[in-house]
């Protein structure tokens, strides 16, 4: 799963941690250090194109722009795992009253600066996801999260409960993400094959050791953070965590291609003429991304 977050060279040693497992706090600290570092790289990257954003370009992509964009005006929107806030601020431009939360202090600092520079009203909160209720009150009409977020979470049951608690009655949760089936593919072959030991959830995360790897947004950058921890979450766990938290699923959409923005450097996933990514010669073989909408019952 080398391309999951850090594109470029495959990190060596993707096994689940053997031996003395690090404490949860140490894993969180390792991931936070990674994302602080990635923020500094991404802020200057062509991929995130901060200049373009400040000139008015939206960082949102399909499907969220089509499926959620038209209804956010006037709504209170909470963005979980917002990185340095471009998407959050893009929703603000569409008229939402936005709050973004991320565990990286550097990401939140950049997000606040971009809000000030762009003159967009927004609240940004630095917090580990599960600790968010300690620092953020309020109810929201929309809770949103997207693209490469779930693999950083150890516990979807707590995640879904937190979403339900932040939603006003009748409020909606929306997620656009890489499809869990994608992570069931090995990253070693030009033809898609299952068997990456990365579909079902395991309490022990993958420990990916970065040896000169780049970032998905800047493949030539060199990331110094030595290790990152990621958890698998199958589709059933995502759906069932949300329903158990009291949300009603309104739809699941699955897409056979990834937008150019959702680049993955795996040998079996290649760009097409329009810049989007897919499995060559197998246009309908597998879903690579999904969106899901759910509503909190009254």
């Amino acid at each position, binding site marked *: 799963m080398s391309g999951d977050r850090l594109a470029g060279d495959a990190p060596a040693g993707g096994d689940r941690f053997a031996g003395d497992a690090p404490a949860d706090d140490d894993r969180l600290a390792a991931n936070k250090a990674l994302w602080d570092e990635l923020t500094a790289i991404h802020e200057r990257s062509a991929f995130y194109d901060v200049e373009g954003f400040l000139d008015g370009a939206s960082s949102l992509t399909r499907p969220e722009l089509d499926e959620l964009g038209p209804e956010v005006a006037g709504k209170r929107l909470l963005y979980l795992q917002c990185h340095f806030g471009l998407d959050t601020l893009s929703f603000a431009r569409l008229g939402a009253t936005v709050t973004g939360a991320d565990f990286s202090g550097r990401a939140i600092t950049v997000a606040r600066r971009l809000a000030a520079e762009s003159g967009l009203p927004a609240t940004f909160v630095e917090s580990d996801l599960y600790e968010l209720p300690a620092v953020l009150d309020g109810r929201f009409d929309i809770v949103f999260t997207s693209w490469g977020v779930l693999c950083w979470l150890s516990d979807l049951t707590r995640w879904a409960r937190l979403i339900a608690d932040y939603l006003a009655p009748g409020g909606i949760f929306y997620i656009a993400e890489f499809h869990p089936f994608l992570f069931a593919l090995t990253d070693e*072959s030009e033809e898609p*094959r299952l068997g990456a030991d990365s579909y*079902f959830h395991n309490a022990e995360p993958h420990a990916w050791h970065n040896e000169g790897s780049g970032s998905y947004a800047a493949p030539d950058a060199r990331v110094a953070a030595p290790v990152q921890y990621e958890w698998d979450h199958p589709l059933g766990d995502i759906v*069932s965590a949300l329903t158990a938290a009291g949300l009603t699923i309104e739809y*699941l959409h699955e897409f056979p291609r990834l937008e150019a923005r959702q680049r993955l450097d795996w040998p079996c996933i290649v760009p097409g003429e329009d810049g989007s990514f897919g499995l060559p010669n197998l246009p309908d*073989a597998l879903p690579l991304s999904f969106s899901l909408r759910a509503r909190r019952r009254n």
Partner: protein
Amino acid sequence: MLNEFLMANLGLWNEWTEIHETSAFYDLEGFKAGHSSLHSIERDELGAVAGKRLLHLQCHFGLDTLSWARLGATVTGVDFSERAIGLARSLASELALPATFVQSTVDELESNLAGSFDIVFTSYGAIEWLADLERWAHTIAHFLAPGGTFYMVELHPLARTLDDLDAHPELRVAGPYFPASRPRRLRIHGSYADPDAHIDHDLAYGWSHSFAEILNALIGAGLRLEYLHEFPFSVVPFSRSMQRAADGWYYLPGGRRDVPFLFSLKATRTNGESEGRP
């Protein structure tokens, strides 16, 4: 009226019924002696069925339907194969188990059956024979009493994208995953219950169904999804190299558990209460 695809499939399922009746896989003698044909997933997840009105869609020749009857459910089984329904009725009669069996396609069931049910059940290799899941979901909702439960346990759509595992043990994805308007043409060799059986009706048609299609069809028919569970083993071997373990399920060589082969899903027909829409 059956179209050409369903006519071909009906020929196959009539022939399969005859083969399955005497197969070790279905173990009719064991069933008559009191064994349940149900598996642990559906028994554990559907729980107590005693006193419940249960409708079993695509019931083949009724072993599961009659197993639910032995657990105290008031059962109705439906299948499009007249030979399967004939065998199911004779088994019910021989074993003195109360059961109603109806010969009908799912699509035409509303014309062939009256009543409402606490549970609608379907399992293992059923929906691949259906072209239209919206119609299927509306049929389920039609027959469910308010507050009633729909439960299914099925072959996992991801496992169904795998290329022939005997020829390609490297778990190659071939697809298709997404639904298409035209069915897939299937060349049938033997039966899943008896791979070496001779088959005259060796041409059949199947439809692929994605998770999105399945879930959205049920939601669109007014059901509320309760859970989606996935399992790293199968009820039938996807290849000759899959081995049956002591727990009765088939596993990939080496016992690896990183590919989902089955899923189960539970949904409830809501009582028409507000689902939160303003």
